[in-house]
């Protein structure tokens, strides 16, 4: 089983990112579940989403304690939230950032999702859409295939800018 934890803020599409990732894993022929952990609706508050991917049906509902991969869609949560909590030794962090980041003991990839979104004019209510491009970056890490990522995106969104942004993120994510 592969476990991913996604950190974002309410209203940024972190929950949708989890869903797209699960859909992509499903398209690859795997089983997947995705779940947010939050309570009352509050835009801007830090939230966490979980995704589990496995070859067999997933029967676990409790929170992910030791993720294999952490995704940080909004680095501004980091002062308040210990995003690395429980990450397996040698685990991976994918962070939305223009700059290279280093977290000792882990593999770190960074990609500037925000500027990719702005470049593609992928915006809603004045904010850049990060959840479709991040799926492209995740495909590059190999947890889902690029084709499945694209079909998951197309299954939810008809605007092809989402695909272009995902492809750009796939290309630009640091390796």
């Amino acid at each position, binding site marked *: 089983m592969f476990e991913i934890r996604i950190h974002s803020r309410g209203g940024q599409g972190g929950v949708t990112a989890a869903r797209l990732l699960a859909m992509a894993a499903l398209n690859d022929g795997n089983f997947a*579940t*995705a*779940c*947010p952990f939050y309570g009352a609706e509050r835009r801007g508050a830090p939230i966490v989403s979980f995704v589990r991917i496995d070859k067999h049906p997933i029967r*676990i*509902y409790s929170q992910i304690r030791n993720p294999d991969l952490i995704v940080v869609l909004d680095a501004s949560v980091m002062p308040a939230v210990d995003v690395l909590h429980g990450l397996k030794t040698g685990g991976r962090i994918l962070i939305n950032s223009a700059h290279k980041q280093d977290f000792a003991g882990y593999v770190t990839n960074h990609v500037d999702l925000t500027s990719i979104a702005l470049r593609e004019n992928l915006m809603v209510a004045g904010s850049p859409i990060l959840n479709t491009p991040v799926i492209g970056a995740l495909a590059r890490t190999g947890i889902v295939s690029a084709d499945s990522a694209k079909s998951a995106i197309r299954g939810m969104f008809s605007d092809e800018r989402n695909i272009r942004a995902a492809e750009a993120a796939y290309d630009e994510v640091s390796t």
Partner: protein
Amino acid sequence: MRKIVTGNKAVAEAVREAKPDVVAAYPITPQTEIVETLADYVSNGQLASQYIAVESEHSAMAACIGAAIAGGRTFTATSSQGLAYMHEMTNWAAGARLPIVMANVNRSLAPGWNLWAEHTDAMQERDTGWLQVYVSTVQEAYDTILMAFRIAEHQDVLLPVMVNLDGFTLSHIMQPFDMVEPGDFIPPIHLSEMIDPKNPKGYGTIAGPAEYFRFRWEIERSMREAVNVIEETQAEFGERFGRTYGLTEEYRCDDADVVVVSLGTLGKEAEVAIDILRDEGIKAGSLRLRWFRPFPELNLAGKDVVVIDRDYSFGFGGVLAHSIRSKNLVKVYSVIAGLGGQEVTYDDIAGFIRHRRIGEESWFGVNAHV
């Protein structure tokens, strides 16, 4: 094609397939997505229901009662405080013998305000005459809502059905599922006593001491009949659509020395604990109870029984534990866990089984020996 949706969304999809005549809707976390999705379906023509945005949950059930007496198939959804506020009318719905279907997204009761999974809300409805079932996956939520309408409306039942989903844990998790075309699996509703000025009747009039008790016995008689109706319905669902459900779901129970009994998603998480224990040489099994009302016959002979209650009846004990003690005349190890969304993992469940103390009760997180 497989879709990936939340438990709430799957409920709404199934309701859409069932084509209720009237939906009464009031929001409450964590059920709100159900009433919002239904509003969407009605607004874009995917569901031709009358949608009543009522002003409270008491009114939601009262509106369903009215619509059902008028001969309609009805649906509503609630949780926790809403269910508690509805309680006078849930009693009414069952007493009036109306086949209303309701999704209850299990959530704890205030104070303090807590939004997360607990079964006490539905447990407090256990005396009302509602049928109650607890589901554990998105697929099961979808399938069970479809079956609920058919079971409720069956001439031998004519009682309302509550489908319970764990708040957030199941209502908000996204899992893959398959939809079905029910076709005639749910026959058109036919309530022979519906309002008819040509054949006028008084509904729910005064019933004196010589008569009232007979109505209550009729409810119980139908509850007992309901077991057969449930089993037939589930069997036919399996034949037609390929997924067969039982009154319970048993996992590795046949040769088990110890069985853990629970409701809802804990029953799935428990299976992971069972696999871990089996690898250690402990012959454990999981019995996930699905139907809680009518309470089924359980075969627990010769096994140690661990019961997890995600609920409590103060001054008495865990409701599931005492149900089993009294129905099966067996001592159990009663564990109270998961209240207010308290995190319970497969490791914790394995621990309950490994360290069981038959005949005792312990509160997870409170008692030192758990």
